[in-house]
Structure formats: structure tokens, C-alpha cells
């Protein structure tokens, strides 16, 4: 495997996933902090930013992610396979699966995860991911909670957590050494009307720009979209009208589990119309519980209590706004189960208005259309995000990612001196982001694949080499699944199946199999549990975090 030397003072950045040649998905980055010491020697430390999953690669895997081999330390060892030092930390920008979902798999494969630094909501959702995977508690990483403005010191670098608008707890990272300064956006947009967590602060971003930013590593997902985005406040007003027009009827909303800001808008719409808010379904419940664990006052923001489906069960349906999952027509989500009248599903009939305040992404359009048709067959009135404008309600969905206007604002505030490096996008999205930067007079570095090593130092920013980043393809082990007393899906509540057991294939950087289900056997960390689980021997170095408080 190629190895690129990193011995010049400054920062090295490597996108290990997020600049895929085969489409958007997954995020993982490595930063090396290299400093020349007083005695002329070179010191080098490194850390990771995000470790997420790529879904739907079309190769039959549940997910793909960058291999932990050579990066993470195998349990019982003191250094990664192939040598080099262990990463000092894993910094998480936010709680979406494409940013943290691979952590549980690396642990499952027998690796230790370095100490994690994340905001409270992100930390709670990582916790949720480890619980869902059934990872024994003694294998979990150290999890340190940070807030906006906190600064972690890693070697000679200072890393500031900078709140951004995207989901509760979303943060960018400002990474500074004597020689270089990088702003890593994470996923972001600008919407000051989002209710949960800390808001992006343009004044702080301008101050960061004034102090000097060399490179912005930035989210490309929606940059090709122009025009003014709908704010969450506008979406809330439109949802309030839809609920108001459904007087005397049951209202069921289908969202994504992680759309807590939309849940707050639905709560406000319910409250304004004299209804109570209830949630139903595991992933939505997980996110509400994570907000509670993180100290976010979601009921205060919604202006109403949040009832469990059990609490709402005996209330007249016309007094409830029931929120469930299924905006992407996932096979076992609430709306889908209702559409197919599965046992225990929410009843939906001619007295029900269904609202889906989330546009379908291209890969789910067919399933989405057939779910809507099925709900209409049941007699329901269905208001989708696609239909709401033509029904006169206006927008009820907005992407969580920066559109052109947002990216332009960010670059104007940060004024990157050397370069913008688009990430988190397919070829077209990355190209649009780069074009926008160039239109502002900022050079752009468009990477069409993962693995390029970029040095940012006193002399500028440049690609110094490319390393192959191999991937892991994870699929559920059918042999193991067959032996377990797994209840069939779709049997309503208390359908508890044991966590899935995965087998892992090693893939090359473009997703071709190089080693089929033959990776060194992990020490068993998912159920069925080993009677005496292996101990975490690698605890990593604890970072010094200066708090903003």
C-alpha cells in the first residue's frame, strides 16, 4: 500500500471517505499535525474527523465504510497494523449515520475506537448506535462532551468547535497551527429559526475569517441549488395551516427519525390547533430520548408535551398529531406499516390526513410513490412535501445542507486565503461547490476520489500524494441470523430482535471485493456475547479541552 510521508510543518488533510468516485455517502477524514520543535526535530500527531457509513452502494452490502485497518488500533495492540502512532481522537461533527455510523462496526471488527469528542446530542446518538449494536459497555470509547467555543489541543494544533445549523449539536471544526488554519464545515446551512441546540453565529465566523483561514473543507450536497431556502419558521407556519385544515380528522405525520427540528415545528402546529403531539416508532423515539439526554428542551421548544404512542392511544384521534417515520418509505417504518396494515401499525383511513414534510430522494422515489398510493387507497388525504406548494400551503421541507446562498455567505465570512476543498458530494455537487468558490475568486481543489493527501503550510496548499483507502463492506450474517430467535419484522410493538451480526469484506477504494468475508475474526462484541468480553486496553491520550464557559 502506498504511504505518503507527512514531515513538513503544518497540517495534512486526507479525505478517506466523502469524495467517492462512486457517489455521495460516508464521511471520514484524517488530519495530521506536524510541527518543528525547538531542537529541530519533527513531531507529528494525528486525529480523525467523522467515521460514517455509505449506504446503498448497490453491491448488496448494508453499508460500506473506510477500513479501520492501519488507522485504528486492534484491541490488545498498542499501534495500528503496519505501524505508526494511534490517532489521538475522533472528533464528530454531528449525529447522522453517514458521520458516525462506522464506529460500532470498527469495534465489532476488534478495534479500539480512540477517545471521541462530540457535542452532547451527537454523543448521545453515538451512545444509541452502540446500544443498538449490542456492543458490550467495556468496549465503548471514552466519550467527551464539548460545547460550541470549546477548544481541544492536539499536538501543536488548537481545534475549536464552531456551532453550525444542520441538526441539534452540529459543529464545524476550526483547526489551527502556527503554519496553517483549516475550517472543516461538517454538514451545515444557515437557518437562525431552528429551535434546538446552538445556532451558527455569522459574527463568530467573520471573526474567524479575520484571524485567517487558509483552507475551507466544505459540504457540497445542496450547493447546486439556488434561490432562497425555506426557513424552519416558514415550514412551521405552513404545517400549522395544514393541521388547521384537518379539523375533526386524525393527523399523522411521517418524517425521518433524526428530523427533530421538523418534530418541533409539528409540535408547534399541533399546539396552535389544540392538539397534543405524540411520537411513534423506534428511531424517532431514539432521537427524542437523545435530546432529553443532551439537555435539549424539546418540549419547551415545541410548546407541548411529547406523548408516547401508549399515552396517546386512548385519546380521540382528532385531538392528536401523531408523528411517525416513513418519509423515505423504509420497509419497517411507521407509515409503510400503516399503508400495508401490518399488525400493531397506526390505523389510517378516510378520516386521516397524512403529512410528509420531507422530499423523497431519487433512490426512494418509486417506493415513496407506491406508499402514497397505498395510503390513498386506504382513503387518507396525503399532503407530501412535493404536493404542498401546489395545494397552496407553500414549502414544508428544506434540505439540511447549504444551498448556493449559504455557501456564498460562508466563504464571504471566512475569506479563505488559499483554497476551498469541496467534500460530501458526487462529482456534480463537488464541481458546483468548486465553481462557486472560483466565482468568488477563491481557488478550489476538486477531488474526485478519496485518499489524496493535502499539505497546508506556510508555502500554500498542495496535493503531496495519494494513498489507497480500502473499504469494508458489511452485510448481516445469514448463518448467524438463522440461528437466532429473530422475530419477523412488522409484528408491532415489542418486536425485539437481537442486534444483527455482521460479516465484513475488504473492498478496494472503488468498492471491488479484494477479500471476501475472510477478515481476521473479531473478538465477539455483538450478541451473542462472549461470556468474558475482552477489555479495552487502548484508552488513548486524553485531550486538553479549554471550555468556552
Amino acid at each position: 500500500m502506498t504511504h505518503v510521508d507527512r514531515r513538513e510543518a503544518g497540517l495534512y488533510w486526507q479525505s478517506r471517505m466523502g469524495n467517492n468516485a462512486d457517489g455521495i455517502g460516508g464521511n471520514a477524514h484524517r488530519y495530521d499535525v506536524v510541527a518543528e520543535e525547538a531542537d529541530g526535530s519533527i513531531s507529528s500527531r494525528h486525529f480523525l474527523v467523522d467515521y460514517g457509513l455509505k449506504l446503498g452502494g448497490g453491491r448488496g452490502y448494508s453499508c460500506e465504510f473506510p477500513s479501520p485497518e492501519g488507522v485504528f488500533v486492534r484491541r490488545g495492540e498498542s499501534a495500528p497494523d503496519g505501524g505508526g502512532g494511534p490517532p489521538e481522537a475522533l472528533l464528530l461533527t454531528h449525529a447522522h449515520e453517514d458521520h458516525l455510523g462506522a464506529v460500532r462496526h470498527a469495534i465489532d471488527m476488534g478495534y479500539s475506537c480512540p477517545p471521541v469528542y462530540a457535542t452532547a446530542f451527537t454523543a448521545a446518538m453515538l451512545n444509541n448506535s452502540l446500544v443498538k449494536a449490542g456492543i458490550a459497555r467495556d468496549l465503548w470509547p471514552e466519550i467527551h462532551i464539548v460545547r460550541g467555543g470549546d477548544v481541544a489541543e492536539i499536538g501543536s494544533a488548537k481545534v475549536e468547535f464552531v456551532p453550525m445549523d444542520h441538526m441539534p449539536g452540529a459543529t464545524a471544526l476550526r483547526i489551527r497551527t502556527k503554519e496553517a488554519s483549516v475550517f472543516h464545515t461538517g454538514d451545515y446551512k444557515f437557518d437562525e429559526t431552528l429551535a434546538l441546540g446552538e445556532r451558527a453565529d455569522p459574527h463568530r465566523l467573520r471573526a474567524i475569517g479575520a484571524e485567517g483561514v487558509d483552507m475551507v473543507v466544505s459540504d457540497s450536497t445542496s450547493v447546486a441549488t439556488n434561490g432562497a431556502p425555506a426557513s424552519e419558521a416558514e415550514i412551521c407556519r405552513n404545517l400549522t395551516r395544514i393541521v388547521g385544515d384537518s379539523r375533526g380528522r386524525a393527523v399523522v405525520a411521517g418524517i425521518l427519525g433524526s428530523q427533530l427540528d421538523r418534530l418541533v415545528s409539528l409540535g408547534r402546529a399541533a399546539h396552535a390547533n389544540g392538539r397534543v403531539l405524540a411520537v411513534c416508532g423506534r428511531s424517532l423515539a431514539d432521537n427524542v430520548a437523545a435530546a432529553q439526554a443532551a439537555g435539549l428542551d424539546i418540549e419547551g421548544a415545541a410548546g407541548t408535551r411529547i406523548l408516547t404512542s401508549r399515552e396517546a392511544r386512548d385519546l380521540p384521534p382528532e385531538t392528536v398529531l401523531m408523528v411517525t417515520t416513513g418519509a423515505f418509505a423504509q420497509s419497517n417504518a411507521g407509515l409503510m406499516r400503516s399503508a400495508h396494515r401490518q399488525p400493531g401499525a397506526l390505523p389510517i383511513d378516510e378520516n386521516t390526513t397524512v403529512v410528509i414534510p420531507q422530499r423523497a430522494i431519487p433512490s426512494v422515489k418509486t417506493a415513496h410513490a407506491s406508499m402514497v398510493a397505498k395510503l390513498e387507497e386506504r382513503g387518507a388525504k396525503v399532503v407530501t412535501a412535493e404536493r404542498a406548494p401546489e395545494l397552496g400551503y407553500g414549502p414544508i421541507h428544506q434540505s439540511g445542507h447549504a444551498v448556493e446562498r449559504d455557501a456564498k455567505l460562508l466563504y464571504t465570512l471566512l475569506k479563505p486565503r488559499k483554497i476551498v476543498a469541496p467534500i460530501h458530494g458526487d462529482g456534480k455537487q463537488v464541481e458546483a461547490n468548486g465553481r462557486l468558490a472560483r466565482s468568488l475568486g477563491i481557488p478550489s481543489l476538486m477531488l474526485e476520489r478519496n485518499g489524496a493527501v493535502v499539505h497546508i503550510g506556510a508555502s500554500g496548499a498542495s496535493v503531496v500524494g495519494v494513498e489507497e483507502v480500502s473499504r469494508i463492506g458489511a452485510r448481516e450474517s445469514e448463518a448467524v441470523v438463522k440461528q437466532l430467535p429473530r422475530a419477523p419484522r412488522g409484528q408491532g410493538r415489542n418486536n425485539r430482535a437481537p442486534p444483527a451480526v455482521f460479516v465484513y469484506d475488504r473492498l478496494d477504494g472503488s468498492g471491488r471485493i479484494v477479500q471476501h468475508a475472510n477478515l481476521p475474526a473479531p473478538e465477539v462484541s455483538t450478541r451473542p456475547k462472549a461470556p468474558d468480553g475482552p477489555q479495552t486496553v487502548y484508552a488513548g491520550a486524553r485531550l486538553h479541552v479549554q471550555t468556552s464557559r
Partner: protein
Amino acid sequence: MNWDDYEGLGRALHEANPDVNHLTVADADLVRLVSALPGFADARIRPDATSLTAVRFAWVAAAEGDDDGSPYDGSA
């Protein structure tokens, strides 16, 4: 059971407190409810935030079941 046995505690909480809202239960109440479970051995140990949150999610899992994964979360 002790604080690390998050799955067992989640199941026990669900069985013992079917009428408590598992979504929005406050941390202090969660500690109190766990400490009151028969067979809980760590009643005098204050859990760290990570252990307590794991128990919270295990309770949600026991109460809500597994239906409705959102595998696409993150791309919207």
C-alpha cells in the same frame, strides 16, 4: 444487575414502569427508577452520563420494539 448491564436494565424499567414516559424522563428520575429495581446492585454508585444514557436508550428499545429503522438518515 449493575449500571453496565444497560440492556437488562432497559427491559426491567419497561416492565416495572409501563406508564412512565420513557422519551422524556428526567435524568434524576431515571436514576431513581433504576435504583428501585429489584436486583439492582449499584444503587449507591452514581452512574456517569454515558452509562445513564445507554440505559435510557435500552428502555426506549424495550418500549418501542425494533420497527422503523431509518437507514437513510443523514442524506437529507
